[in-house]
C-alpha cells in the first residue's frame, strides 16, 4: 500500500529566504504523525507547503496525486483540512457560520446536519455558542472551533498547527483526547507541536525538524527513549 502523503526534497521560500532545505518524509494512511522542532525549524512552513501557501520546489504527493501545481482551494477539495497557526477564526461570523464555511470545499454537497451533530458531539460547548460571534470565544474554544471547522470538510488528512499554543493544560488534554477519537474514525492527522511530551503521547510516528531539515525520525515510543530527544525536547 502506498503512502498517504509523500514529501520529497521539499524546499520552501519566503521571498529569497529559504525556509526548508530539502525535507523528505512520508506518512502512512490512518496514523497520527507529528513534526517536532524548535521555533523557526520549519514546522509551520511544512504544513503551509502542503496547503500550497508558500512557494516550493520538490515534490508533494497526496494519494499519488502531485500537489505542487495546485492552488490552496484545490488541495482542500482533495480532502486535506488545515487548522492553521493562530486558529484562523472568522471572528466576525458566528460559530455556526464558521462551521458552514468549513464544509465549503467538500466534494459531496448534501446535508450538513450529520456533520453538525458529529462536531457538537466532540465539542458540546460549540453547540451552546453556535449563534455567538466566533471572536468572542475563549482561546480554547476557538481552537476547538478550528478543529471542528476542519472536520466539516470530512477530511482524509487533518493538518494541525500547534493546537496546544496558549491554552490551559486541562483544555489541551481535552483537545488531544478528542484528536485521538477523531483519528479512530479514520482521519489521518499530521500534527505540528512544540509541546513534545504531548505530541509524542498522541502520535505513532515522529519527524524531528531542525533548521529546515529532517534530522531524525521513527516510531514515537522509540524516539521518546532517545537520550538526545529527551534532553532537548522533553527536558529530563
Amino acid at each position, binding site marked *: 500500500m502506498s503512502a498517504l502523503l509523500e514529501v520529497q526534497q521539499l524546499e520552501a521560500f519566503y521571498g529569497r529566504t529559504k525556509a526548508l532545505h530539502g525535507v523528505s518524509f512520508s506518512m502512512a494512511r490512518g496514523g497520527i504523525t507529528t513534526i517536532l522542532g524548535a521555533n523557526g525549524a520549519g514546522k509551520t512552513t511544512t504544513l503551509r507547503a502542503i496547503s500550497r501557501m508558500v512557494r516550493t520546489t520538490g515534490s508533494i504527493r497526496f494519494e499519488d496525486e502531485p500537489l505542487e501545481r495546485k492552488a*490552496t482551494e484545490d488541495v*482542500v477539495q482533495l480532502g486535506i483540512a*488545515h487548522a*492553521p497557526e493562530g486558529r*484562523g477564526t472568522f471572528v466576525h*461570523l458566528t460559530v455556526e457560520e464558521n462551521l458552514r464555511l*468549513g464544509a465549503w470545499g467538500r466534494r459531496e454537497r448534501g446535508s450538513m446536519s450529520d456533520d453538525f451533530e458529529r462536531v457538537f458531539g466532540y465539542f458540546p460547548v460549540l453547540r451552546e455558542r453556535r449563534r455567538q460571534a466566533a471572536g468572542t470565544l475563549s482561546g480554547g474554544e476557538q481552537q476547538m472551533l478550528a478543529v471542528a471547522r476542519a472536520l466539516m470538510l470530512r477530511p482524509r488528512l487533518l493538518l494541525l498547527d500547534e493546537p496546544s499554543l496558549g491554552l490551559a493544560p486541562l483544555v489541551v488534554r481535552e483537545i488531544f483526547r478528542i484528536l485521538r477519537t477523531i483519528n479512530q474514525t479514520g482521519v489521518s492527522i499530521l500534527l505540528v507541536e512544540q509541546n513534545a511530551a504531548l505530541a509524542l503521547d498522541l502520535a505513532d510516528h515522529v519527524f524531528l525538524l531542525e533548521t529546515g531539515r529532517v534530522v531524525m525520525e521513527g516510531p514515537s515510543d522509540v524516539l521518546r527513549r532517545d537520550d538526545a530527544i529527551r534532553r532537548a525536547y522533553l527536558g529530563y
Partner: protein
Amino acid sequence: MDIFIQQVISGLATGGIYASLALALVMIYQATDVVNFAQGELAMFATYICWTFLNAGFPYWVAFLSTLAIAFVGGVVIERVLIRPVENAPILTIVMVTLGLLVICNSVAGWIWTYVQKPFPSPFPERPFRAGNIVLGAHDIGEIQVTLLVLLCIYLFFRFTPLGLAMRAAAHNPVSSRLVGIRVGWMLALGWGLAAVFGAVAGMMVAPVLTLEPNLMGGVQIYAFAAATLGGFTSPGGAVLGGFIVGVVENLVGTYVHFIGTELKFTVALAMIIVVLLVRPTGLFGSTIVKRV
C-alpha cells in the same frame, strides 16, 4: 410643517441613491481596502446603456434588468482584467487604476453619446401623490421603494445564502477562506459585479431628476463618499443609513438655511466629510481597524 415633511421625504429619495452608491463603495472597500473612485462613472456608463436600450424601443423594466445584468458582468470583467494584475501592488497603484478608469469611462461616454444632456424617463407615473397639503413626487416615492427593495435583496443574499456567507468570509479573512476552499479571487470579482449593479440602480434612478450626461454621477459620488464616511467605511449598514441622513440633511439645509440655498448644497457634503473625519474618523458605525505592522 408640510414643507418639512415634503423635504424629508424627497431627501430620503435622493438619500436612497447616495445609499446605493455608498454601499457599492463600502463593499469594495471592505473586500480590497481600496476606494473605487470610478464607481460613479461606471454607474453613469450603465445608465447610458439603459438609455440605448430604451432608445431601441425596449420596455422600461426590460431595459432596466438587462442593464443590471450587463453592469454585473462588466464589474466582474473589470476586476478580473484591470484590478487582478495589481491586486498585490501598493494601495496607491490600485487607486491610480480606479482613477484612470474614472477618466476613461467619462471620456468614452462623451465620445459615444456626446456631452449633450439627454432626458431620461422615469418608470413611475407623472401624477404626484397628495396627502392633505403634502405633495409627493411619484418618482421620489418609487425611488425609495426601488432602493429599499435592492437593499432588502442584498441583505437576504448576504445573510442567508452560502455564496453570500463565502463572500463575507473572503472579505474579512482571505487566508482562512482559502483554507476552507473558497476561491477568494472570484469572490472579489463577484463583489465588483454586485457593486456595479448597485451603482447602475443609483444611476438609472437619479438620471430622470438630473438628466443624463457624462458628468451625471460626479456630484452623487461626492455625496456617496460623505454617506460612507458618515456611516463608516467598514459598515455596510452604516453606509446605507449615512446615505439617507446625507440626503435629508442636504435637503433641509438647502430649504431652511437661506444663505446656503441650492448653490451651496454641495459644500454641505464636503463639510460633513471633514467634520466626521475630525470628530469620529471611523464614522458612526465603523470599527477601528487594528493593523499589525
